[in-house]
């Protein structure tokens, strides 16, 4: 936990455009900002462009920062916005159908196919080195409009209303896409984690 006085001093140096302070700040936060933009954008180039854009926006508006949150929380919001700006351009591309990854039901409302159990608990899965990589790869395979909702809600921890506002869609659309995205992600991970496919 940082001392509030340290943050005030850092803010003053950033506002005066002190190059060494700016570089140190970019260096300290670049990894986290790029991690945010990468989660939202599929292309590495777009993610890096969004990270650059986020820092440029941050330096341009730092004189308006009022300290209602910590500097890093403020920067996180800017990074999400920058990534969403580029995301809107990217979503115009064709998308993969999600239907194949959703559970299927018979006309009587029962499951059309059996679902296997996962033998390992979440804790056990998280202890495995490869789990985080598999999760990231599975998220990357989701169609963009579903992936971005899942990332905003479950990874960036925006609430439904905030995610809807940022994406310019209704809260109902966010809920529906989140529901479908989580189910599709579960299906993709089930291929890795189910005890048996039967």
């Amino acid at each position: 936990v940082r001392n509030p006085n340290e943050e005030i001093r850092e803010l003053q140096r950033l506002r005066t455009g002190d190059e060494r302070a700016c570089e140190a700040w970019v260096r300290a936060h670049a990894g986290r900002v790029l991690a945010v933009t990468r989660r939202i954008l599929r292309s590495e180039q777009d993610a890096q462009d969004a990270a650059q854009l986020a820092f440029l926006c941050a330096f341009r508006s730092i004189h308006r920062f009022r300290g209602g949150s910590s500097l890093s929380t403020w920067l996180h919001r800017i990074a999400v916005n920058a990534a969403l700006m580029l995301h809107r351009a990217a979503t115009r591309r064709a998308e993969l159908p999600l239907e194949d990854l959703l559970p299927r039901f018979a006309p009587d409302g029962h499951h059309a196919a059996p679902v296997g159990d996962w033998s390992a608990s979440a804790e056990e899965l998280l202890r495995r080195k490869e789990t985080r990589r598999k999760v990231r790869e599975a998220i990357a395979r989701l169609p963009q409009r579903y992936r971005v909702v899942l990332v905003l809600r479950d990874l960036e921890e925006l609430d439904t209303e905030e995610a809807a506002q940022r994406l310019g869609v209704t809260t109902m659309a966010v809920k529906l896409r989140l529901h479908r995205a989580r189910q599709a992600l579960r299906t993709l991970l089930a291929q890795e984690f189910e005890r048996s496919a039967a």
Partner: protein
Amino acid sequence: VLDCHQVIAELANFLDEEVSADLRRDIEAHVAHCHTCEALYDSARRTLRITTESRTFELPESVSGRIVERIMARLRKA
């Protein structure tokens, strides 16, 4: 009585604790007797947990080093 399709349609709301007490009770009653819904619910809960936890990944230093240089070059020009 809820069928499997209705239970799974409410899964995201159930995981986010955004269902009424009555609906929660009905879902829990269904899941207690339906192995397939139980397996789906259980794995969905684990998926959510490991997804949330997977956020904390670090970038290789070389990548963040390059991006810092690029950002600083843009800032000097701006």
